[in-house]
């Protein structure tokens, strides 16, 4: 193994990955709460999901367990499906309301 790579690997400890994950997650939360545009909100959700994915992968690597990676695949799959459905809903909402501001979309009826 490349000694440089080994050193590099050693030099990025677990906590850094987790800190990155937490930072991404927090960004997602803040985005979700602060942003008004529905698409941005949606992206924030994706960001949170991926932050969680990152911590899954990190722990899977740490414990040499493959379960975490499988979870990541599941999450990605669900996220893809959610993106498809979510975008369709967003288009439908925009057609009906002519707006994507979350505050305005507060009724169950059209």
């Amino acid at each position, binding site marked *: 193994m490349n000694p440089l790579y080994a050193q590099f690997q050693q030099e990025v400890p677990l906590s850094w990955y987790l800190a990155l994950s937490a930072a991404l997650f927090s960004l997602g*939360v803040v985005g979700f709460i602060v942003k008004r545009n529905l698409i941005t909100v949606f992206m924030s959700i994706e960001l949170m999901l991926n932050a969680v994915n990152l911590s899954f992968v990190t722990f899977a690597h740490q414990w040499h367990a493959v379960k975490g990676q499988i979870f990541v695949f599941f999450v990605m799959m669900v996220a893809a499906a959610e993106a498809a459905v979510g975008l369709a809903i967003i288009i439908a909402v925009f057609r009906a309301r002519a707006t994507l501001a979350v505050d305005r979309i507060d009724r169950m009826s059209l």
Partner: protein
Amino acid sequence: MSAYLHLWLIPLAPFAGFLVNGLFGRRLPKWLVTAVALLAPLASFSAVLCDSSGDLLPHVETFGQWINAGLLHIDFSFVLDQLSLTMLLVVTGVGFLIHIYSVGYMKHEEGYARYFSYLNLFLFFMTVLVLAGNALVMFVGWEGVGLASYLLIGFYFKKQSAADAGKKAFIVNRIGDVGFLIGMFLLVANFGTLTFTEIAAKLGQDPGWQGGVVTVIALCLLLGATGKSAQIPLYIWLPDAMEGPTPVSALIHAATMVTAGVYMIARNHVLFDHSPFALSVVAVIGAATALFAATIALVQTDIKRVLAYSTISQLGYMFLGCGAAAYSAAIFHLVTHAFFKALLFLAAGAVIHALGGEQDLRKMGGLWKKMPVTFAVTTAGVLAIAGFFPFAGFFSKDAILYAVFQQGVNGKILWGVGLLTALLTSFYMFRLWYMAFLGEPRGESAHTHPTPFSMLAPLTILALLSIGGGWIGIDRVSGWINMERVSGFLAPVLGARGADAGNVQLELILSVIAVGAALFGWLLAHVFYRQDSTLPEDTRAALSGGYKILTNKYYVDEIYGATVVKPLMGISGLVLEVIVDYGILGGLAWLLTGIATLTGAVLQRWQSGNIRAYAAWVAAGAAALLLFVLVPWQTVWPQSLEFVWKMAGH
């Protein structure tokens, strides 16, 4: 003990009748209601007759455990012995006759099926009461007959007075029931059992049981008995109970239910035997009630009220007999009284029925021509209750008076009271007889409806029983009433009375005196109400004060009203209604609703409808949870407290 007698059949038949008529009676045709209603007591009566072969007695049947707590075991058990057999024959036999009579009497009344379902329900509970093998099962029947009595007194519930009378009977009986209940609790606490035979056995084993707690138990049971059997101080409900249909008065408030108290004392006689004080209380209450009620009966003008007070008076005789420890004489009088008082009530019912609802004696008269059969049977009943030889009342009343006479000096006084009561009884019964049946027709009595056969037949049978019923008390050997046969038959249950059986001469003399008193009463009534029509008025004018007291029934209702009812109502109005109901309960309710409203008012601001606010709260909640889980509070808390402490400058 060998055969199984199926005692459960006896109460079950009327209960089935109650269910059928109570649930479907309104949709069934009238003949079917009648058939069910009559079959139920008939089946019961037949079952009793089938079980009445004496060699199987006493017979106990247990249908399962009821209460099994620690050392206390109470079973659903029925006992058939000589005592309960006697009672059962009266209850189901007289009950059946009165059912037949009711068919004619209630024919045109509203609620025909309801009436018979109640009547069957009464028979069910009464047979349970009589058959009970322990005090708790007896209490079930005891409360049940109270319920049936309440329902039947208030049968014409659209009439305010009837509804009130029902409530009065129910409430006054509850007071007595408290006594019965406390007596049972004390029995459980002291004997650990409620089974009559076990109590008797435990009392028999230890001669130390005397007075003290036994007296208290006996007095508590006596309070229950005074409630049910309408004795002083709880007799006030019975006269009002006459608001019910007349056959009900005959069955429940004369022949059977009101005698339950006497039966209960006889059933628990071992307890009373161990407490001379309680026995003398029973005797004094009985004698006082007998005289007291008889004096009130002298001036009543409502035919049913005369009979009601006479019932109270006769029940007093039974208590007097119990108090003299002559339980078998009391039970004997109970039986004969059931015959002649049921007869008198039913005859009064026939008169009322014939006159279209008229109950006032002053508006009757001369009925003997129009209702010869009723007149004849009433005559038999009057002679029986007055105690003339050879009618039923003579034997039983004399048996009681004789037993009382032998109880020392106090017994002589009580005997005198009993004798005076006999005189008064004879007087007021013949007064009724003269006013209703003899003399000239007055008021409504000119027009009478015919009496149906279904009413005359039971009257005739009861009249025969009133005439001949007393002869079961005759000793075949000596040919005189020394109670040998009755007490001999009941001896296995009630215990044999020893020395008193012998003195035939004394008993003969006492009987002659009693009949003399009754004759004197008849004579007085004859003078007052037959010969001299102005004499009653003159006497009333001369003794207006006493007359007023008597017509107002010694103002007992008013006294109770002022001393018990009014203060109770006052306390209820102030303490219970204002403080407890409005203050505590209402206030609590207001407090709870206030808390809920206030919390809602605050929390509803959370429900803003803003999705981002919700998300923020979810995030905050998740953060709080994380904080709670991840921070090692056990170490952080002391440190931070210390930090604050130091920062404060220490």
